[in-house]
């Protein structure tokens, strides 16, 4: 059926109206700051894992390496990182006896866990992984109960003196989503079922009270005369 020229003109107005509404909606989506979401079911690429085996603290010639599988939103992990870890770090890691390897193990029930781990990965890009790790584990303010914790992590990044534009670009790109997933799968493959879980000399120690200064010191003493592990 043929339309009249007036009908075609009316249609052009309709088309222009739809285009305008669409452009306004897209502009609003771009200019509002959306809560950051880090996808869980990503396809892991080779470059997500190549050369990266976790976040290390301490000398690579230390006698003992402790691998910690943890979740930033897990209360037991927070308790460990704020109560036990400072002593371990001060007495054993800085002393060169223990090397710490941190692996992300974001639990499904913790809605901000991946965002937190990704925020720390973005801080790592600017050489501030461990300061960011400590900030996030401070839980100040109580970001686990916030609706959008990404704003708090951004505040941490600014407080640490990071280049916020670079940090924002890193977060919105979700470029470390694959690395996080690979870390989780590594833990699951090692038999980790809860957080925190520590892997020392091939043995798993689950629970926030399983590892502490005295325990590690005893282990180090028992390794006297043996090669580093």
């Amino acid at each position, binding site marked *: 059926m043929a339309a009249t020229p007036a009908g075609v003109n009316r249609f052009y107005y309709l088309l222009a109206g739809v285009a305008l509404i669409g452009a306004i909606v897209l502009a609003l989506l771009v200019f509002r700051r959306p809560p*950051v979401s880090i996808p869980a079911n990503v396809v892991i690429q080779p470059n997500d894992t190549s050369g990266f085996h976790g976040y290390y603290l301490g000398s690579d010639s230390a006698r003992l390496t402790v691998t910690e599988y943890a979740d930033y939103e897990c209360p037991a992990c927070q308790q460990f990182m704020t109560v036990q870890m400072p002593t371990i770090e001060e007495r054993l890691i800085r002393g060169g006896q223990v090397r710490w390897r941190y692996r992300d193990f974001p639990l499904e029930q913790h809605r901000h866990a991946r965002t937190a781990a990704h925020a720390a990965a973005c801080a790592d890009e600017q050489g501030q992984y461990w300061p960011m790790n400590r900030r996030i584990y401070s839980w100040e303010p109580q970001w686990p109960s916030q609706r959008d914790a990404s704003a708090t992590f951004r505040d941490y990044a600014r407080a640490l003196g990071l280049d916020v534009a670079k940090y924002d670009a890193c977060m919105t790109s979700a470029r470390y989503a694959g690395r996080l997933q690979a870390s989780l799968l590594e833990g699951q493959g090692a038999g980790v079922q809860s957080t925190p879980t520590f892997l020392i000399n091939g043995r798993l120690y689950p629970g926030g009270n399983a590892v502490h200064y005295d325990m590690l010191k005893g282990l180090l003493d028992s390794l006297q005369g043996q090669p580093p592990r």
Partner: protein
Amino acid sequence: MRAWMATALLSLAGLLLALYLYLYKLGLIGQLACGTGGCETVQLSPYSRFLGIEVPLIGVLGYATLLILSILSLQAPRDPRWPRLLLWLSAAGLMFTGYLTYLELFVIRALCRWCVGSAVTILLIFVAAWLGRRGGEALP
């Protein structure tokens, strides 16, 4: 004429949809309004580029061309070149979408609702372009 109006409106819808996905790829939209995570899986997969070009960008350019061809068909209803080009381009778009849907279902194994929306849009554009050209050819 109605057919070219339909293809114009559908091409505009497809253009806005592809633009939305392209802005996401550029990192300008933090989170897709999708809910299932399937869109992120598809968008972050290595198949989100075709011959080195972002697939959503191909969609933006394709739908923009279809929109221009629809308007040209409306402006010059007796010129058969534009409806013919529109039909061929929508057929090419449909085949490309079929390839992408195959990748989603059998290779990436994740389905993105926005991509399904685009697949339905290009199918409707093809049907309207085909019906329009049949109707146009019947005109004296």
